[in-house]
């Protein structure tokens, strides 16, 4: 038994693995995660359909709420935390996020500029005929 505990101190945590081992604490973690996620989801759906807030702020609020909820899922469901045994998992996640932001941000940026620089098609055809 003490050998088992020893092993856990020695090695890194696998993704999805938790540090504490009592069943009650683990269930509590999932309950807290579910509560936070439901709260954020309800806020998202409420904000999307309401007239109570300044309309131009809605897209930004939705994106912020979505990122917050992804964070809640990562911490409470996938157990990716900043703990010392989680370094490898967090570094892999950071690299994945870098690629995601490059792909999405780069695409939106470039395509928005392409649309701006391209005249409408009929005008384009008139220019070259």
């Amino acid at each position, binding site marked *: 038994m003490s050998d088992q505990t020893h*092993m856990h*101190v020695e090695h890194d945590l696998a993704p999805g693995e938790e540090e504490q081992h009592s069943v009650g604490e*683990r*269930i509590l973690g999932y309950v807290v995660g579910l509560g936070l996620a439901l709260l954020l989801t309800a806020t998202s759906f409420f904000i999307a359909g309401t007239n109570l807030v300044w309309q131009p702020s809605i897209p930004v609020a939705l994106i912020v709420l*979505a990122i917050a*909820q992804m964070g809640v*899922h990562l911490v409470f*469901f996938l157990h990716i935390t900043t703990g*010392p045994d989680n370094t490898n998992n967090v570094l892999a996640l950071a690299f994945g996020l870098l690629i995601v932001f490059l792909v999405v941000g780069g*695409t939106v940026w470039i395509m928005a500029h392409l649309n701006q620089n391209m005249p409408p098609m009929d005008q384009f055809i008139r220019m070259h005929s």
Partner: protein
Amino acid sequence: MSMTATVAHAHADPHHIGRAAEHPGPAPKRIVTAYGFWVFLLSDIVMFSCFFAAYAVLSGQTAGGPKGSEIFEQRNVAIETICLLLSSFTCGMASIAADVRNRFWFYLGMAVTCVLGLIFLAIEFREFADLVARGYGPSRSAFLTAFFSLVGCHGLHVSAGVLWLLTMMAQVFAKGFRADVLRRMMCFALFWHALDIIWVGVFSVVYLLGGGA
């Protein structure tokens, strides 16, 4: 005595920097498997980010067809979201039950997860069938192509997840909580939670942002 020494050492050097040379052997199989699967999940998320980027670029290109706000039904999306959230929770309960080797709670948690996943798939299938029947299939406009490929790709992942879930139940039934079965269960839980994270992006970007515009 040696235990206290280890704990004290771990506190002095939480990242095990000074101990790399002392333990040159490979990590246990459980950690290697789960880490490899985590890297696969991240590559899957990168693939989804391409679909998200395509949707963001094409969401305005309706070619005279319907806009997002005309075809999305918030109530269905809310039900789908709650189904996936609850299924993520019950999947967590099932993995705790697998760790403590409790068959009853494992089967119950997995069965509820399966039912919630199937409800999600049924609602999504009905939405797709309804859109196609109204003539708003994926070939109608660039916006609908991007919509069907992003949401459909997530739906395919959920379908694969449900099949995997049933396989895990069968394996536990036939082989019990063996070490290899528990490793697969761990990967399945990671997969299911990752799908829920992607769905958060889908309902926020596609349905709420696209529906409001």
